[in-house]
C-alpha cells in the first residue's frame, strides 16, 4: 500500500457528521440522551410531587388537553401506566392501536401522525416495532412525542422508572442526581440485550450517574460490540460472577418475536442465566431484583425470586405511573425553571 495514502483519517480533514436537529419539540422525550442530569432530577422531583398531590388538584394540570396513545405493539404496563398518568393529570386520552385503525389498511406512520394532529392531539405517546419511529413521527408532526418503546432501540421512561426504583433502595432520600449519585453501584442487565430497548436506555442513562453497568448473556443475545455502546458499560459473560458484583440485577425476557430465526436452547439458557433463589441467596443476598416485564416465570427468573423479598418488580410498575405523570406533564407544560428538562 502506498505509504502516502495510509492513515488517511489522521492526515486529512474529513466531512463532519451533521449535528442532530432532534428533538424539534422541547416537550418530546425520544431518548434518555435528550435529558440533562438536571432534567432527570426535575422529572424525578415532579414524579414525587405529583404522586403526593391531591388527585382533584392534579386533575386540573392538563385539564381537557388531548393526548393520543399510538400503539403498534401490544403492551400492558406501558400503555396502561401512560394512560393512567395522562388521565390523572386531567387529560383526555385516546388510544389508537395498529389492529383497529387505518394502520391495518396501510396508512403510513407520517399520515397517521398528521391525522392525529388534525384531530387535535397535542402530544403523541408512541409504541412502535421499528427502531427510530419516534424520531420520524416527531420530525413529521413537530408535536411533543413520548417514546414508549421503538423497536429494539429505546424506552426512556422505563429507564427513568428503573432509576427511581434503584434510587429508592440504594440511595433513599436523593433529591437531585449528579454524575456521582450512583458511584459504587453495579447494575447487571441479563439476557436478551441485543433485542432490548430497556437495556439500551438503561445503559445510556445509568453510567451518566456514576453507575457501572454489566451486561450478561450469551453471544447470540449480547454481541461483543455492545461494550462500545458507551462509557461505563462492560460485558461479563459469567452470570454468577456478574450477580456477585451487583447491587441491582435487571432480568430481561427472551424476545421470541424478535429472534428472527435465531435458535436458542432454552434449557441451556436456563442453566446458565436463570435467576434462582439459590443463586440470589448465595451470591447477592442484598441486591434488588428488577424486571421490566412481562416476566416468563420459570425461564429467565423463578417464581420464587419474582415474588421474593428482594424483588422490586411491582415497585417498578408503580413507579412507572409517577414517572409518566412527570413526563406527560413536561410534554405540555413548561417547567417553573423556565424551560424544559
Amino acid at each position, binding site marked *: 500500500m502506498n505509504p502516502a495514502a495510509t492513515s488517511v483519517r489522521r492526515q486529512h480533514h474529513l466531512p463532519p457528521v451533521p449535528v442532530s436537529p432532534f428533538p424539534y419539540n422541547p416537550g418530546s422525550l425520544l431518548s434518555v440522551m435528550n435529558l440533562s442530569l438536571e432534567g432527570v432530577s426535575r422529572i424525578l422531583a415532579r414524579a414525587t410531587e405529583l404522586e403526593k398531590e391531591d388527585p382533584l388538584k392534579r386533575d386540573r394540570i392538563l385539564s381537557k388537553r388531548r393526548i393520543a396513545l399510538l400503539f403498534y405493539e401490544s403492551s400492558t404496563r406501558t400503555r396502561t401506566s401512560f394512560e393512567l398518568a395522562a388521565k390523572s393529570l386531567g387529560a383526555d386520552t385516546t388510544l389508537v392501536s395498529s389492529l383497529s385503525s387505518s394502520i391495518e389498511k396501510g396508512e403510513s406512520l407520517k399520515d397517521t401522525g398528521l391525522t392525529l394532529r388534525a384531530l387535535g392531539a397535542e402530544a403523541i405517546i408512541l409504541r412502535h416495532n421499528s427502531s427510530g419511529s419516534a424520531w420520524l413521527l416527531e420530525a413529521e408532526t413537530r408535536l411533543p412525542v413520548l417514546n414508549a418503546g421503538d*423497536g429494539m432501540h429505546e424506552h426512556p421512561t422505563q429507564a427513568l422508572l428503573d432509576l427511581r426504583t434503584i434510587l429508592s433502595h440504594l440511595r433513599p432520600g436523593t433529591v437531585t442526581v449528579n454524575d456521582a449519585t450512583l458511584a459504587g453501584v453495579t447494575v447487571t442487565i441479563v439476557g436478551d440485550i441485543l433485542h432490548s430497548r430497556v437495556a439500551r436506555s438503561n445503559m445510556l442513562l445509568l453510567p451518566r450517574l456514576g453507575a457501572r453497568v454489566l451486561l450478561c448473556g450469551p453471544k447470540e443475545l449480547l454481541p461483543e460490540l455492545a461494550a462500545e455502546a458507551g462509557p461505563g458499560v462492560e460485558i461479563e459473560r459469567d452470570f454468577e460472577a456478574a450477580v456477585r458484583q451487583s447491587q441491582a440485577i435487571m432480568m430481561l425476557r427472551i424476545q421470541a418475536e424478535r429472534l428472527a430465526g435465531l435458535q436458542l436452547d432454552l434449557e441451556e439458557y436456563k442453566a446458565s442465566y436463570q435467576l434462582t433463589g439459590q443463586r440470589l441467596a448465595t451470591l447477592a443476598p442484598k441486591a434488588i431484583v428488577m424486571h421490566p416485564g412481562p416476566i416468563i416465570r420459570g425461564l429467565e427468573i423463578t417464581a420464587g425470586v419474582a415474588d421474593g423479598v428482594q424483588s422490586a418488580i411491582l415497585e417498578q410498575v408503580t413507579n412507572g405511573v409517577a414517572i409518566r405523570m412527570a413526563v406527560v406533564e413536561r410534554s405540555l407544560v413548561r417547567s417553573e425553571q423556565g424551560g424544559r428538562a
Partner: protein
Amino acid sequence: MTAIAIRGGHLVDPAAGVDAQKDILLKDGHVAEIASPGKLKHAEGAEVLDATGLTVAPGLVDIHVHLREPGQGHKETIATGTAAAAAGGFTSVAAMPNTIPVNDSPEVTRWMQAPERGASVRVFPIGAATRGSKGDVLNDYAALKSAGVVAVTDDGHPILKDNVMRDVLAAAARVGLSVIQHAEDTRMTQGASMNLGPVSFRLGLRGMPPEAESSLVERDISLVTELREARPHLHVAHTSTAGALAAVRQARRNGLRVTCEVAPHHFLLTDEHVGLYNTHAKMNPPLRSAADRDAMIEGILDGVVDAIATDHAPHATHEKEVEFENAPNGITGLETALGLSLRWLHKEWKMPLGRVLSLLSAQPAALLNLKGRGTLTVGSFADVVVFDPKAEWTYRATDSKSKSKNTPFDGWAMLGKVRWTVSEGRVVYDSLP
C-alpha cells in the same frame, strides 16, 4: 447539426495525456479538431462556447445508475435521470437492469435506447445476468449484446449459487461482456438495514456484516481464477469494505481481470452519518465504518480503484419518509459526484485533477469498453464537460433535475461547477441558459 467551437479553455484529457490550453472543434457529433488557442482551422460558422478560465474535459461516464424506466416513472424517467446526468457533467450512463420488467431482453434494451425516451445523454443499458434477475437461468448474452447491452449483472440480487455465477462469467466472457456483481451474501444480511457495528447496535438496527460483501467478492474471484483461460472480466460494483478492496488488489496482482468502482458516499461518509435514522443515509451496500471508508480513500489514491460510480438510485419523497427499516435503499448521485470528487479527492486529498477526471471518465469508459467515450482525441464522440474548477458552490437537492431528491449531500459544499455539458455535439446542459 451546427459545429461547436470551445475556445479559451484548459483541456484535460487524461487518456490522451493532454493538460494544456487548447481550443476544440466539435462537428457531426465527433471531435473534429484540437488546436492551440486561436488556431482552429475549420471553425468558421461554428457556435462558440467561451471557456476562458474553465476546464474542458471528456464528458463524465457513470457506469452505475438506476434510471427506473421502464416501470417506476414516479421515481425517475430516462429523460429526468439523463437531465440530472447532464447537469452533473455526465455524457454516458450505464443503466442497471432492475427495472419493471427486468431488462433481461433485447426488447427492453432497445426500448430504453429509443429516441422517444428523450434522453439527454447516451444511455448504455446493462442487461440482467439471469432471467428476471432470479439467479437461475442465464439470458442470451449474444442477443443482449447486439441490442446494445454493455455488461450483465443481477445488481441488487447477487448471484449466490456458485454454479450459476461460474456459468455467467464463462458465458459473458465468450461474447466479450463484463460481469458486474453487487457483492452481498444476502444470507448474512436478512432484515438488516445498515452496517453492522457499534452504531447499528446503539440504534437498535440489524446490521450487515462487512464479511457479507468481502466473502462474495472472494468467492467470485475464486471463480474467475478457475476460469482464467477464458479471461472473464469481473467488475465489483460499489465496493464498500476494506476486505473486498484487499481481495480485488490481490486478484489484480495475480493477473486476473477484476476491477472495482467506489461511490462518493462510500469514500466520504460512515455509518455515523445515519445519525438518528436519516433515510437519506440508507443505501446498499450501507455506509460503513471509518476504517472501511478510509480504505476506500486509500484505494482511490493508490490506484486499485478503477472508477468512481454514483449508484444513482432515486426514490420518491414519500418512499423515504418512513421508518428507517422500511425505507428503500439508495440515494441520488449524478449531480454531486464531480463537485464532491473535486472538493475532497482533489482539493483536500491532493489528487491531481487529471487523475480525478480519469476515474470519472477514461477509466470507467475503458472498463466497459465504451469506444470513443472518456477521451477527446480527434474522432472521439463530442462528449464534453466544461466546468469552472475554482467555483465553490452549495448543492441544493431542491434544484436537482432528477425527479427524486433523496440525497445526504443537500447543503454540502461542492468544488467545480459545470458550465456546459455537450453530448455527441449537442449542448445538453447550460448553467446560464
